[in-house]
């Protein structure tokens, strides 16, 4: 019975992975296409070479990654603490605040983008600054934090509060009790929130487009603005490299984790 369930699970996971990765395989395949067309013309590595020569794309990549990492980390911090604070509010206030915090998610991106642009322009003329890195970062944090809150809140609801109180009874001060009891409980939610924020920030086009100013360009904008003509396969090459690097990191870390798990079990 157990083994049948296990095989069933493995097949299910495999099927989902196939679904998720067939388009990625296509994407990777076309990074080797000799030609800018959608028709296969032969195998080549030239797009990888061109990629490193293309300073515009490299610059956009750098901008995109920095913003994504910073936005993810800051949103996660901001959002986790916000979730804790909101959780402690009385019900009517909590409902209101939760609803308001969901608004950036509910607003269509173009509306958020344009209203940010108007806001930043107004503030910009007042305080004499131009839009750029900072405004993009602020905009990204604004739309990422609600996702963190939505991921952390359910974990807070699930949590058995008495563990925290027990820790206080056993002599911990508030900070120690928090880190020893609450943090581990909500950590899966925090991590999910971090991952989601990073993902949303990485791929954002509309909001970034309206808040970037004349000097700042990110990768999604680079790609979207190719769309009147066509997307160069250098973008495919770039995506493939990111993919390979991430998989490599995954494999290395996983091997090490399995090793420590084995060691722990044989102890």
């Amino acid at each position: 019975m157990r083994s049948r369930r296990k095989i069933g699970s493995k097949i299910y996971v495999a099927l989902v992975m196939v679904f998720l990765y067939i388009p990625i395989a296509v994407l990777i395949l076309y990074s080797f296409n000799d030609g800018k067309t959608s028709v296969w013309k032969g195998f080549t590595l030239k797009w990888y070479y061109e990629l490193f020569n293309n300073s515009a794309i490299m610059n956009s990549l750098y901008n995109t990654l920095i913003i994504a990492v910073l936005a993810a980390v800051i949103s996660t911090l901001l959002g986790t603490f916000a979730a804790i604070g909101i959780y402690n509010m009385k019900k009517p206030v909590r409902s209101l605040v939760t609803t308001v915090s969901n608004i950036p998610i509910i607003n269509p991106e173009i509306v958020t983008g344009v209203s940010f642009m108007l806001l930043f322009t107004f503030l910009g003329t007042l305080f004499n600054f131009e839009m750029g890195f900072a405004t993009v970062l602020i905009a990204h944090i604004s739309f990422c934090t609600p996702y963190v809150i939505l991921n952390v809140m359910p974990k807070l609801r699930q949590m058995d509060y008495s563990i925290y109180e027990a820790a206080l009874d056993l002599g911990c001060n508030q900070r120690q009790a928090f880190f020893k009891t609450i943090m581990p409980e909500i950590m899966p939610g925090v991590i999910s929130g971090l991952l989601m924020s990073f993902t949303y920030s990485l791929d954002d086009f509309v909001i970034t487009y309206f808040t970037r100013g004349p000097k700042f360009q990110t990768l999604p904008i680079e790609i979207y603005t190719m769309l009147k003509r066509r997307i160069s396969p250098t973008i495919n090459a770039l995506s493939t490299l990111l993919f390979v690097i991430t998989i490599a990191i995954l494999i290395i870390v996983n091997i090490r984790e399995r090793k420590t798990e084995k060691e722990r079990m044989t102890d």
Partner: protein
Amino acid sequence: MKKILSIALSAVMAGTAALACTGCDSQPKEEINVFNWGEYVSNGEDGTLDTIAEFEERYNVKVNYTNYESNEEMYNLLKESNSSYDVIIPSDYMISKLIEEDMLEKINFDNVPNYKNIMDKYKTTDFDPNGEYSVPYSWGVVALCYNKTMVEEKPTGFDVLWDKDYSGNILMFNNSRDAMAIAMKLKGITPTTVTKDDIDVATKYLSEQKPLLKKYVMDQVFTEMEGDQAALAPYYAGDIAVMMTNNENLDYVLPEEGSNLFIDSMCIPKTTQNKELAEKFINYMLDAEVAKANAEYLGYSTPNQAAYELLDDEVKNNELIYPSDEYLSKCYTFSDLPQDVYDYMQNEFLKVQL
């Protein structure tokens, strides 16, 4: 889990720090903000000229090169944000609008000696009658692309886009101006400036077309036509030429009723903070070798005589890229429309598409 993330994060940060340092420079340089379409200048691939990098090196300046996706989006950013751009490359009708709204600087041609390279016929245009605010960068016509294996006889004009025999295999422009222009010209209206009544005529005609269409497309036209997925599509001449090199089943037709002649020109918006450097940039773009490299990368037609002469004969004789004067006389350009008329056009087209 934490471990994976912390390693990943540090790898990303290390990588990006490395990337940043490759571009590191300690001297502050003059900067220029150039705002252009995507994939619109030669970028150094396959050993061709890297236009922006070359300019940076030659004049020891930093170019902040950013892109926009449509004239309207560019206009929105220009008008409603306090961002300062030095050079922009909009299309004809948008330039006309910018001139009217006093958003462009007059160019000091003493700083642009290479202006002599521009063909005389493009020095003054409908949208810039005295040629004071803009310098042409590229031009082209709209033509019909068709798949020889899917279409029986060679079409003669855009009316074939309404042919029921090809129902389900016809593509159409996914933007109001280009789509309505085709419809209007077939109904005898010249789409240079239009009225709401003209738009109504076009709307009605386009509604008749909708059931026959496979899709409204812009960039997707490449995957559709090159992959033998559709039979007919109107698009810009230079892009059709590219599609034809990628699929030998494709051929083109210059419609007998004429089509849109579009010109994209370089302008200096009033928000510029360094007008002389902007003019230097424009002058650089007019250099024969630079203009030639851009024209070859872009695939569109160049208004630069000196660059034209450097092109391959095959390109010069290509009727699609350099149509005869006889065909050009049948073509029309787009002028700026009053805001409410233009909004009406876009709204009506959206309604047709729904």
